[in-house]
């Protein structure tokens, strides 16, 4: 049974009371909140995620509520609670849904150590995975959003989950975070995309989340081997280019941009090495999404 089978009123009641229990990829969550924006965001962007029974194991128990105190009357805020702890300072109330998304990423990145987790977008086509690690501002999420609206399957726009046993990529298809100009660019590029509420004046500027494609959510149990590791970079008015990237450098980059490489020790190195073994590695510069999609669609799998 999916979240969309709940009426908005029932959804709000579950969130306010015992919590909404649902699954995204391999992860189960109990979410509690009385904040309307979180209920609205879930209603809009999470309808196709599976509800979880009370007797199932829950990975993360999270709660988002306004903090107590006078401030709630003149400057409302939202506070994140994780297993009874409050790891972050509150954020402005209008950023509640964005905080939910960021907090969930934090939960996975810092606690899900039976996978190697790398800060990267992951997509898949024809059974082959493509990993896009890149620093903020490189256009990674914009490119990822464009590609998953043109036939690529979304695994994640932020967290690459890599199995320690067989090196397979594990889907965690959640809404794609878009920032600033990217929100309107994707709205124009993919008019069918469902984009949620814009949170303004966040630490990242204006932020909105795009709903993960239905097929990506439905196929979230289907793993894929990595085939390409591409470092994207958006450069205005640039000519598109795809040039080989040193595998040794790519290996070190993945290690340095992993959330739990140090926790995993030599198992982390072996997992990263396995990814590098399997992938063709490139630097990719682009300025036009249509051209980028065409190039990605024509990528040859590594020999």
């Amino acid at each position, binding site marked *: 049974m999916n979240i969309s089978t709940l009426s908005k009123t029932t959804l709000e009641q579950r969130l306010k009371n015992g919590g909404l229990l649902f699954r995204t990829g391999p992860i189960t969550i109990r979410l509690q909140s009385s904040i309307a924006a979180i209920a609205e965001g879930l209603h809009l962007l999470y309808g196709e995620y599976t509800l979880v029974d009370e007797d199932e194991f829950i990975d993360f128990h999270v709660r988002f509520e306004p903090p107590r105190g006078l401030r709630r009357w003149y400057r409302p805020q939202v506070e994140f609670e994780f297993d009874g702890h409050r790891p972050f300072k509150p954020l402005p109330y209008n950023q509640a849904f964005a905080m939910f998304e960021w907090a969930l990423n934090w939960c996975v990145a810092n606690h899900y150590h039976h996978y190697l987790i790398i800060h990267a977008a992951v997509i898949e086509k024809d059974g082959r995975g493509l990993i896009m690690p890149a620093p903020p501002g490189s256009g990674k999420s914009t490119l990822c959003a464009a590609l998953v609206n043109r036939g690529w399957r979304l695994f994640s726009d932020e967290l690459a989950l890599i199995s320690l046993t067989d090196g397979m990529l594990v889907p965690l298809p959640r809404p794609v975070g878009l920032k600033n100009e990217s929100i309107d660019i994707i709205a124009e590029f993919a008019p069918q995309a469902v984009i949620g509420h814009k949170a303004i004046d966040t630490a990242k500027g204006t932020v909105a989340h795009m709903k993960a494609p239905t097929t990506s959510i439905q196929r979230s149990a289907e793993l894929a081997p990595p085939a390409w590791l591409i470092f994207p970079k958006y450069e205005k008015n640039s000519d598109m280019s795809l040039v080989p990237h*040193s*595998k*040794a*450098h790519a*290996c*070190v980059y993945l*290690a*340095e941009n992993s959330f739990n*490489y*140090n926790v995993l*020790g*030599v198992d982390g*190195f*072996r997992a990263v*090495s396995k990814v*590098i073994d399997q992938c063709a590695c490139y630097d990719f510069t682009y300025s036009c999404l249509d051209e980028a999609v065409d190039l990605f669609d024509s990528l040859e799998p590594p020999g």
Partner: protein
Amino acid sequence: MSLNHLKQCWRITSGFSPEWREWEGEMVVYDSYSGDTHAFDAVTAFVLQTLSTQSQDTETLMKQVAGQFDLPPDAELLAYLEKVLNQLSSLRIVIPA
């Protein structure tokens, strides 16, 4: 370059337990002792592999590098080798024996 300098012997640091992989002539080393990961060029990788089997002095290492990569064992190569050894030393992977 003094004779003493050329005769300086080097060895792998005790406890250094590397796991390494090589791609396209470049090597990546995982140091399970420190948890650090390093990418090295072919010469550095060769020096590290050589010292992993046996301690060597700088002069002998230079001759081995020269033979391996078909380079003249001259001052330029020696300067590069010293740079490599300093890098490995600063990472506490090799130490004077």
